[in-house]
């Protein structure tokens, strides 16, 4: 899909009110837990209190005998004989022979009320045999560590590694020895990050209604309802198209709602009880048993000449993604050095299983950890050689045609533009207060295209309805409406965008990978162009001329030039008003798996004050600069930048999964899982850089994910400068920073 090279836009780049705004400020918008059905039952899930245990027996007879209890399901109520990813998904949804982590689902219950369901859970008797567990990534790779699952390793793992290492990757190029020999300074450091959670405010929720004939409906909060349909169908042994899934409004996802946890259980309960079943997770269940991100243990070594040229770089990433394969070490390895032109580079990655919940995607999955390590080393090199961190990055920055560290050459990209904007931003040269450090870091996310289907129909009044399959998490209906308005030349207010259910449209991948505005936007524009072709044909028929002699501009058909004939233009409303009698409905449709999604670079600047007596860090000023390709609705682009930065700050400073010696999660409430609150943050300034993406008609790049990549190292670099001690471990909680200040090392 090529770039239009359009320089003037009428609607793109404006900031109209979002179409779903009114619903969301009045409480009308219906999210996952806001659905009710006649005769509905309420579900609840029994979860393992053990990190690792054999299930010897489950006796549900007492619970089933309780008044109001209508159905109980265990693993036996799901599909048999699954393999690969489907088996993993089922095993994570409901435990089989073993429970693999604290909070692992063991049984589901449906009853006439939530209270009855919860009371009945206590009557289910499960006999466990507790076995040794491991939750730390390095410990899980060590000799003698408990094995989570024998034979889980795939073809990629070389001989001799612990069975908990289930995937391995290695790639690179050049001559590392020569590269490091050419360096004036080499920094070789180890880093560690803890697992964090996406922290969406809406817990997972669904309402399932599945008949004994295998036909069913599911209402749920998800980033991708076709994914939900495929996964649930597999786990319940249903025909995919027999299950109709409707995506509710979604209260945040950030990657964590691209898979299923409770939906298959609700469907199984509904099938067994013969009634609709609503199932809603508590916050504690969300933290314990949805999909947090991986934790990482990393070594990075980089060499630099005294004039700031990188000569060689190597990295090793060990990442745990819970009791299943899937830690995003492939993305971490591919993107770790993505900002820099390197001739001599090597990466190694290990996917390690532990007794923790199965990790799910979290905003640029895998990239922030790698960026933390690499950008910290970059900063230390600049500091050690007395070089400016932005000028040095500019000296090594990738640009169009540069061979990426992971292989392919970049197309048009905007890293240099973000670095130049950062260098020229007043924040970068502002004076710093006492005990305050400034950190800079860059980051990248490559984005994603994915299966996409969009339908567009002209209404009788000339307004346009657009049906997309990507749930709207952060304002994408407004973006689609702007793109449709621009393509057709009608006012934004005349475009209605709906997220359709799985029965109404071809398969769509989720709103993930920063793809919604890029891919559904591209398909919307193409669908609009198809409809315009039909509109022109209707005008041509009416005028008795060839369709090629009709031109579409500003929402109306015109004869193209004097030779075409002298006709009054026909507006979209004119044509639509007669469409029933001129050939029937007018629609446009586009299906694609677009590949030209480009990628988005960002550079962040942050000032952090550190209290030398307590180690407490306060973010005083923050600036995000990122390439959006073309900002369709700048307010929501800024919102993505700001949200990504805030999540990254939380990850850097205070968020972490804390497991006790017993392998149980210690902080399963928002009181102790500390995401940033309003008073923790300053205003977050934004600069939108626009280097058009050649793979989208209007130049769009996805912007959702890149923003969480630079904050980890930017904040770490700032604290390192404020304290004079290099911070190599996240979170940089006050006890850890205080120890560093006191010279006791980084624990």
């Amino acid at each position: 899909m090529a770039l239009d090279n359009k320089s003037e836009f009428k609607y793109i780049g404006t900031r109209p009110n979002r179409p779903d705004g009114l619903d969301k400020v009045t409480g009308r918008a219906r999210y996952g837990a806001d659905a009710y059905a006649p005769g509905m039952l309420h579900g609840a899930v029994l979860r393992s209190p053990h990190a690792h245990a054999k299930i010897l027996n489950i006796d549900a007879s007492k619970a089933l005998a309780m008044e109001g209890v209508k159905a109980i399901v265990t693993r036996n109520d799901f599909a048999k004989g699954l393999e690969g990813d489907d088996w993993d998904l089922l095993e994570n949804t409901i435990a089989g022979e073993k429970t693999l982590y604290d909070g692992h689902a063991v049984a589901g219950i449906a009853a006439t009320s939530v209270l009855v369901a919860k009371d009945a859970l206590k009557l289910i008797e499960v006999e466990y045999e507790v076995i040794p567990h491991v939750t730390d990534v390095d410990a899980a790779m060590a000799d003698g560590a408990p094995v989570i699952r024998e034979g889980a390793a795939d073809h990629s793992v070389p001989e001799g590694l612990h069975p908990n290492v289930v995937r391995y990757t290695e790639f690179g190029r050049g001559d590392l020895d020569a590269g490091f020999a050419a360096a004036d300074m080499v920094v070789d450091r180890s880093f560690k990050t803890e697992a964090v959670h996406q922290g969406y405010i809406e817990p997972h929720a669904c309402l399932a209604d599945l008949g004994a004939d295998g036909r069913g409906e599911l209402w749920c909060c998800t980033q991708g309802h076709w994914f939900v349909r495929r996964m649930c169908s597999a786990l319940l042994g249903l025909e995919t198209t027999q299950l109709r899934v409707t995506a509710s409004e979604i209260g945040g996802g950030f990657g964590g709602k691209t898979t299923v946890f409770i939906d298959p259980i609700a469907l199984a309960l509904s099938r067994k009880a013969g009634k609709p079943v609503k199932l809603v997770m508590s916050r504690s269940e969300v933290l314990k048993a949805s999909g947090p991100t991986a934790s990482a243990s990393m070594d990075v070594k980089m060499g630099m000449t005294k004039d700031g040229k990188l000569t060689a770089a190597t990295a090793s990433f060990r990442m745990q993604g819970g009791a299943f394969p899937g830690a995003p070490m492939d993305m971490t390895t591919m993107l770790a050095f993505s900002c820099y032109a390197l001739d001599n580079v090597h990466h190694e990655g290990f996917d390690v299983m532990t007794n923790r919940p199965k990790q799910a995607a979290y905003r640029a999955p895998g990239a922030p950890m790698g960026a933390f390590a690499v950008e910290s080393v970059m900063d230390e090199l600049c500091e050690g050689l007395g070089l400016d961190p932005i000028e040095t990055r500019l000296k090594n920055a990738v640009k169009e045609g540069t061979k990426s560290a992971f292989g392919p050459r970049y197309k048009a990209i905007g890293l240099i533009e973000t670095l130049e904007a950062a260098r020229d931003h007043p924040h970068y040269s502002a004076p710093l207060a006492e005990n305050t450090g400034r950190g800079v870091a860059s980051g990248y996310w490559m984005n994603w295209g994915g299966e996409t289907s969009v339908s567009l129909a002209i209404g009788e009044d000339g307004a346009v309805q657009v049906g997309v399959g990507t749930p709207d998490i952060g304002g994408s209906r407004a973006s689609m409406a702007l793109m449709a308005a621009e393509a057709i030349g009608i006012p934004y207010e005349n475009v209605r965008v709906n997220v359709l259910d799985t029965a109404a449209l071809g398969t769509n991948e989720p709103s993930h990978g920063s793809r919604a505005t890029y891919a559904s936007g591209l398909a919307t524009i193409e669908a609009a162009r198809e409809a315009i072709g039909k509109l022109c044909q209707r005008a041509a028929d009416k005028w008795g001329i060839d369709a090629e002699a009709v031109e579409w501009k500003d929402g109306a058909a015109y004869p193209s030039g004097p030779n075409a004939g002298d006709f009054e233009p026909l507006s979209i409303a004119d044509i639509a008003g007669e469409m029933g009698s001129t050939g029937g409905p007018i629609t446009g449709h586009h299906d694609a798996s677009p590949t030209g999604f480009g990628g988005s670079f960002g550079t962040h600047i942050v000032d952090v004050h550190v209290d030398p007596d307590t180690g407490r860090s306060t973010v005083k000023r923050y600036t995000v600069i990122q390439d959006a390709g073309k900002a369709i609705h700048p307010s929501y682009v800024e919102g993505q930048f700001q949200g990504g930065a805030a999540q990254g700050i939380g990850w850097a400073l205070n968020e972490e999964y804390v497991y006790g010696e017993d392998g149980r999660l210690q902080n399963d409430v928002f009181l102790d899982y500390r995401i940033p609150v309003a008073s923790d943050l300053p205003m977050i300034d934004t600069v939108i850089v626009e280097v058009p993406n050649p793979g989208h008609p209007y130049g769009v790049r996805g912007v959702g994910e890149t923003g969480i990549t630079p904050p980890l190292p930017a904040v770490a670099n700032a604290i390192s400068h404020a304290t004079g001690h290099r911070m190599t471990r996240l979170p940089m909680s006050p006890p850890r920073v205080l120890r560093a200040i006191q010279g006791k090392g980084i624990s």
Partner: protein
Amino acid sequence: MVAVNLWSGLRRFTGGAEVVEVEAATVAEVLKALVEAHPGLDPVIKAGVSVAVDGEIVQRALNHPIQPDSEVFLLQQFRGG
């Protein structure tokens, strides 16, 4: 012939080669030809890979065309959040 760059972890399935030349006009043909040339790559490709063609990353669009002079990289499967 199209030169396909592999990641170095795959060398043990290709007799040490990190660049494999295959006859192919689409991404699907590249993957098929790779497995024919080196059957050890079969599980790798079945598990899911991405293919970079002249800087564009293809995962699902297997009909994506490839020119003889295209720069082609086999990459690990992409994920998004």
